[in-house]
């Protein structure tokens, strides 16, 4: 996943501090005398959400909120297993693995009372595919998606087409044999299909056509028309200031929510938000996609006796690395000495730069060993399927002496490494610290001076996806626990490399073949194949691994059921406020 569009998905639940409270799927009876009389949860976020339309959203904050308002056929539970949600049971899969048949629960309703039928699934998925929002690709495995993804209609025009079941916006592989059955025929084997449609708050989620058709683009902006199947609905919104939710009465799902209301404040400043939390104004800090608390506050809280236990440091599913520009052609204007076409000499340079960075020191100095840990097991984050194992990545080693000798071999007269620039987006303050650290390391351990170039985030993304930078920061946050999420989006023809939407430009025949094979296999079979792909990237020295991120959360001790896994905040329907 991306550094910018933060989305938590699944991974293993790592029990951390004692404040992490596990809820066993709703069957944890709490006597009503324990519960506080005011079941209103309050927490802050640091920026307003962009959109709550499942067909459009792609950022972490958006999904952490929307996941409580919308449901899909299947979902990830707290332990990141895929379980049925609107579907009454897991789908039956045909023998050839191409047809998934879902049966829907008969009791599912939208918060406005509209009953959910298979028609709604078709409408929602076709709409999402036609909208081509951030996660439309989740539906890419379905037969007919390619045609729909070429749709250019929007707004009311698109709604007309959808209502008419126009062929240009209807995936032919998606059918509804009856009101409670949905059948999805895939265009080819795809072991990742279920994970993709389980992804919370995105394109697999159901929206109510009765509501959407009246205001195709902005139906989600008003409390009256933000209608979903989730346990909560929006009751008030003041943009850039606050937003309120309330539990949906007689909700069809489980566990039935204990919270009656939610109040989310939009503050601008992490320090003041944490201070307000400490003073009792908020129950949680870190929900809503803002678990990157400032390090000094974390250190301070760790040193405060009566607050220490409220702090939870939890691995996220994001890896950050340095990418080299590996391809130079008419559309990738940055050249640089690291090109694949430079053969062994260029590879030596890449290795030199990689070995010259002390990753352990980076984690200690920049992250204080709290908010990140060195990435020693490949680019797929530790804890995810496809992780290669601790200390298996040769590029993660630190060896200044060898780095220097490799530099000598690759660039004896120093001309190739003159005037290099490392580009980064300063929007996240950690990026600036990391950039300065890297510059210092290369200066100290290699004697090479690298310029720093901060570029604003969206320009930066555009830039590195089109090959404008010889050295740049890169990162990915996993969407779901499947290596396909990484290998299909970052390298190879399937991601668009070398020329379209590709950071490093890396694309080899071997890579393309290996990825195609692994993607078609069921996951259990595919794992060794994916491991081999990871090794391919290591052998070609395509990156410098830096760190895996960790998030910081604060939970008041009187909360039950609040917590997080590597991917997402626990759903609000599990949270209970005890009397305090």
């Amino acid at each position, binding site marked *: 996943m991306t550094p910018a569009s933060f989305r938590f998905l699944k991974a293993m639940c790592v029990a951390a501090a004692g404040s992490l409270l596990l809820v066993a799927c709703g069957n944890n009876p709490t006597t009503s005398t324990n519960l506080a009389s005011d079941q209103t949860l309050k927490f802050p976020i640091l920026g307003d959400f962009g959109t709550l339309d499942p067909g459009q959203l792609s950022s972490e904050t958006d999904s952490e909120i929307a996941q409580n308002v919308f449901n899909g056929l299947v979902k990830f539970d707290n332990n990141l297993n895929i379980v049925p949600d609107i579907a009454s049971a897991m789908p039956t899969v045909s023998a050839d693995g191409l047809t998934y048949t879902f049966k829907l629960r008969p009791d599912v309703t939208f918060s406005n009372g509209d009953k959910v039928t298979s028609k709604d699934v078709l409408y929602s998925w076709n709409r999402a595919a036609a909208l081509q929002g951030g996660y439309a690709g989740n539906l890419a495995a379905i037969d007919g998606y390619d045609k729909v993804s070429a749709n250019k209609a929007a707004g009311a025009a698109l709604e007309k087409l959808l209502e008419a079941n126009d062929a240009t916006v209807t995936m032919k592989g998606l059918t509804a044999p009856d009101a409670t059955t949905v059948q999805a025929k895939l265009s080819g084997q795809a072991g990742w299909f279920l994970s993709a449609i389980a992804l919370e708050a995105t394109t697999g989620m159901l929206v109510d056509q009765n509501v959407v058709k009246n205001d195709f683009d902005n139906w989600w902006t008003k409390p009256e028309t933000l209608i979903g199947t989730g346990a909560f609905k929006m009751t008030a919104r003041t943009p850039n200031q606050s937003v309120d939710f309330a539990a949906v009465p007689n909700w069809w799902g489980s566990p039935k929510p204990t919270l009656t209301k939610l109040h989310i404040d939009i503050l601008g400043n992490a*320090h003041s938000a944490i*201070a307000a939390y400490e003073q009792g104004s908020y129950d949680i800090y870190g929900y809503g996609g803002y678990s990157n608390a*400032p*390090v*000094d*506050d974390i*250190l*301070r809280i760790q040193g405060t006796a009566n607050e220490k236990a409220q702090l939870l440091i939890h691995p996220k599913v994001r890896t950050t690395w340095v990418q080299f520009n590996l391809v130079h052609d008419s559309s990738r204007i940055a050249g640089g000495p690291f090109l694949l076409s430079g053969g062994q000499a260029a590879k030596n340079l890449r290795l030199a730069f990689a070995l010259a960075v002390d990753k352990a*020191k980076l984690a*200690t*100095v*920049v992250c*204080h060993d709290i908010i990140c840990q060195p990435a020693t097991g490949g680019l797929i984050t530790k804890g995810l399927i496809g992780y290669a194992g601790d200390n298996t990545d040769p590029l993660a080693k630190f060896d200044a002496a060898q780095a220097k000798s490799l530099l000598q071999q690759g660039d004896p007269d120093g001309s190739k490494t003159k005037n290099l620039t490392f580009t980064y987006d*300063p929007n996240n303050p950690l990026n*600036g*610290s990391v*950039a*300065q*650290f890297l*510059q*210092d390391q290369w200066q*100290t351990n290699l004697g090479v001076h690298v310029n*720093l170039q*901060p570029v*604003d985030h969206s320009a930066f993304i555009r830039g590195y996806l089109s090959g404008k930078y010889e050295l740049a920061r890169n990162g990915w946050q996993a969407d779901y626990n499947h290596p396909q999420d990484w290998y299909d989006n970052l390298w190879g023809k399937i991601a668009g490399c070398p020329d379209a939407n590709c950071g490093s430009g890396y694309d080899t025949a071997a890579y393309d073949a290996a990825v195609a094979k692994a993607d078609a296999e069921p996951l259990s079979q595919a794992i060794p194949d994916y491991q081999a792909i990871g090794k391919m990237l290591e052998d070609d020295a395509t990156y410098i691994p830096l760190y895996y991120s960790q998030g910081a959360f604060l939970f008041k001790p009187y909360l039950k059921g609040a917590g997080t896994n590597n991917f997402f905040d626990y759903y609000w329907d599990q949270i209970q406020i005890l009397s305090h």
Partner: protein
Amino acid sequence: MATAAVAQAQITRLDLPAQASLWSDAWRRLKRNRLALVASIYLVLLVAVALVSIVWTPYRMSAIGVTATYAPPTAAHLLGSDELGRDILSRLMVGAQISLIVGVGTQLLVLAVGVPIGLLAGYYKGPADSIVTFIINVFYGIPDVLVAMIMVFLLGPSLTNIIIAIVVTRWMDMARLVRGQTLSLREREFVEAGRAAGARPFKMLFGHILPNALGPIIVQATFGIPAAILFESFLSFLGVGVQPPTPSWGSMANEGVQAIRYAPHMVIAPSIALSLTLMAFNFLGDGLRDALDPRSRR
């Protein structure tokens, strides 16, 4: 010119030594102003530190992790370390360079831009003056930090661009002052005399009016330096100042403010440096104004 000498002599007071031009008079008065004296000594020391820091600082200012992060002051690190374990004293010294460059640089440009505009507007009056006054008022109507932020975004956050942004938003002070001075000076007898003698406007402006307006201009420039340094610290605080690893007192103060609850020492050093420097320039400006004011009784 004879009339000028006569005018000068009339200003001279009876209780002063016979040989006293405006400048030596001012200098004497300035020397007697204790605050201004102390301020000047401080500034001289500051310039010295800035010059020294070009070739030497206790540690390399961008060296990360020379000590533990957020470390309070110790013998080895007199001002402690920041969030990346860098020595604050070294960064403070280099920051002095930045502050002085910004302060003096902006004012030099402001002089180059504002003085000619003010002179021309005040001397020729009429439509040229109206246009200039209108432009000045428009610039005054727009909050400067906002314009500067946008400009730095447009051009990129380099020291040069920051100086340009500050000059663009603050040149009006100088232009307005010079215009006012010119307007009043042009009515004085020596100007009339000069015109009668056939002197060309250029000579009038730069030979006669400007030298007489020099006093307030210098005072304005001296006050403009701390204003520019303050402005830069605002921009740094908002994240559009000089980029890392270059330290400016403003960005150091910003980092310190972020960590104020955990490591208060980080904010104290740059804040004091900023405040002392700004105060020094302000006291010096006060002193210069009193010294150069011919109506002063001291």
